[in-house]
């Protein structure tokens, strides 16, 4: 028996997240919060499964929704069969059905996609995604065409008194599956396969010299990841009670890529963070503005350029400085940079919203914000917002340079201390 010390931090972290899952509906009350949290749980599984490809296996996929979507289609048919009384299957175990279906399609398509790595893999996954999307519209008998297939999750006998009618019960179902999947996917990163996937990502040539078939490793990783994608697809089917072509579309595939990347690809917990922020963006922001996709895209591009490790890396970077007790030195430069960013953002939002309002037919050109109202057809607001944007960007350049200098000095200090 190898000596394995108890990893206390890990136990605390996982117990805390389990507690958070249980307590969340009591912390954030209301139907809106509950729908959002249910969606977050589903997307967390999906994003983590996506990161099994991108983060752990180095496979950039543009068609991951195929597995979750097809898993959801199979689930909806099983659920409808249960509803019509053909056979009995407990609703809370339906995600297993979705998972197995996702896995089966993973075996089928993965055989083709994982033959190549890198950019070609990305293109092939895109092609497979488009093929499945077109195929779904081609067979309306099974897939229900554009309208999709609707279902009713309250079927059969109650499962230990649970009917899954109320949204709260659905939330806890999603939460339970989310926690289980998180644990399972984390465990997978610790297995030899998980380690080999990392090796194949970092240096396929060497992995082959060690005696592994890189194609086989990629294939296994993709198959396992499509299982979890299927689980999340089944959960979304139970939650929304409808599955349509949108579930396998490029929009979904792109969405999960955005969520995962924004959260942070190099870290296991990155996609969890990303999923939460993404749902917040989609559900909350889309209620405020029709240009939310533009803001999301801009946020994504900025992350790609300036923070390729995602939000997770930004947080971890602060933790290091915080632990060394040097955060106070950064507080002022950070505050100044944040202020500059806010000014620039206000200018940008103002311009975008005015353009949007003018392109909308029949909409009034008068906008109101913070109690001020202005007309998008007159010149002064354009001028004001443009100036705000320009001044903000200029100030941001200056202030971020200062942050960079301070940051560099602190890092050099820390490194010198570590070396001594």
């Amino acid at each position, binding site marked *: 028996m190898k000596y394995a010390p108890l990893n206390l931090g890990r136990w605390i972290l996982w117990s805390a997240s389990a507690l958070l899952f249980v307590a969340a509906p009591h912390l954030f009350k209301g139907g809106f919060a509950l729908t959002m949290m249910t969606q977050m749980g589903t997307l967390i599984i999906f994003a983590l499964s996506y990161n099994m490809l991108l983060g752990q296996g*180095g496979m*950039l996929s*543009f068609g991951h929704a195929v597995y979750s979507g097809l898993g959801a289609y199979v689930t909806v048919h099983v659920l409808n069969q249960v509803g019509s009384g053909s056979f009995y299957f407990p609703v809370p175990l339906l995600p297993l059905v979705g998972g197995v279906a996702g896995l089966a399609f993973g075996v089928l398509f993965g055989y*083709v996609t994982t*033959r*190549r*790595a*890198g*950019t*070609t893999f*990305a*293109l*092939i996954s*895109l*092609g*497979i995604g*488009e*093929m499945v999307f*077109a*195929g779904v*519209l*081609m*067979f309306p008998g099974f897939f229900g065409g554009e309208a999709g297939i609707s279902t009713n999750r309250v079927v059969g006998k109650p499962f230990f008194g649970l009917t899954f009618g109320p949204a709260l019960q659905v939330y806890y179902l999603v939460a339970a599956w989310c926690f289980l999947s998180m644990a399972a996917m984390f465990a997978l990163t610790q297995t030899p396969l998980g380690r080999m996937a990392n090796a194949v990502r970092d240096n*396929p040539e060497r992995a082959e010299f060690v005696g592994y078939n890189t194609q086989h490793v990629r294939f296994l990783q993709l198959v396992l990841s499509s299982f979890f994608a299927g689980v999340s697809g089944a959960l979304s089917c139970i939650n929304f009670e409808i599955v349509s072509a949108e579930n396998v579309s*490029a929009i979904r595939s*792109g969405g999960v*890529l955005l969520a995962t*990347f924004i959260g942070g690809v190099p870290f296991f917990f990155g996609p969890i963070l990303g999923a939460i922020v993404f749902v917040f963006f989609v559900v909350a922001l889309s209620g405020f503005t029709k*240009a939310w*996709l*533009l803001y*999301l*895209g*801009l946020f*994504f*591009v900025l992350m*790609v*350029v300036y923070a*390729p490790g995602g939000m997770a890396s930004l947080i971890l970077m602060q933790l290091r400085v915080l632990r060394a007790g040097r955060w106070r030195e950064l507080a002022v430069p950070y505050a100044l940079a944040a202020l500059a960013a806010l000014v620039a953002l206000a200018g940008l939002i103002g311009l*975008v919203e005015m*353009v*949007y309002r003018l*392109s*909308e*037919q029949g909409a009034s050109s008068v906008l109101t914000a913070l109690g001020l109202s202005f007309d998008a057809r007159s010149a002064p607001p354009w001028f004001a917002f443009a100036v705000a944007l320009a001044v903000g960007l200029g100030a941001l350049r200056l202030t971020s340079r200062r942050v960079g200098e301070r940051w560099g000095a602190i890092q050099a200090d820390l490194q010198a201390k570590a070396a001594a």
Partner: protein
Amino acid sequence: MEFFLVQSLNGVSYGLLLFMLSSGLTLVFSLMGVLNFAHASFYMLGAYFAYQVSAKIGFWPALVIAPLLVGAIGMLVERFGLRKVHRHGHVAELLFTFGLAYLLEEAVHLIWGRAAVEYRVPAELDGPLFQIMDSQYPIYRGFMMLVSVAMLVAIWLALTRTRIGLVIQAALTHPQTVEALGHNVPRVFMLVFGGGAALAGLAGVIGGNAFVTDPGMAAAVGPIIFVIVVVGGMGSLAGAFIASLLIGCLQTFAVSLDWSLGGISISQAAPVLPYLLMVLLLIFRPKGLMGTREG
């Protein structure tokens, strides 16, 4: 027979249009190793710019101005975006262009709205070019072919007969040596990226009014040109040419044939065919038609 003739002419003209798109993509890919996900968005921008310019001063100036504008945008994107991301590797570059495609589509929504705009074929090019038995062949299709072929010959001449073309070709294989000889390789990259974008823009100018100009046009044609690049073999111009014509004809014929197989007509299956071709090819010939690289 006449059906076959007209359809193959249509297929070839569509294939040439696809090649205008895929050639830029392939050039940029083989030069910089960047797969420009936003390439189809430049196509869309070309169509929208042409619509705007031709509404103001006419189609012929638009034919020149719109691609130049798109090319300028491409150069700006390379200079201030891609070059920054370059140090993070190819995946980051691909992700950047993916985000850019999102942004450009949203920007088009923002400025021109979600519905299709009325970008029409100019009056002097509207009408039949010639008649094959009973079916007429539109002038505009011929014009499309003419522009694409002229463009392709021009590019071929520029790449093989001019100084800058030779530098580009050398930078394809030996960027360090070219740099050591005193050429500004990053500027060559910028030029090629802008050139690729301008080509896509030109394809948009002549394709936008032949088909439809709406915010969905990038998403509709994007996957097809990526399939072409894979089928032709990553980085091979000749392969891209063959694959473009193949897929152009495949789609044109599939839409117009009314054979059916097991309850599904060929025209219903048309959208799936290019992808099916890609899958089959990957199983039997993973490096693509003319590709040299495996893996």
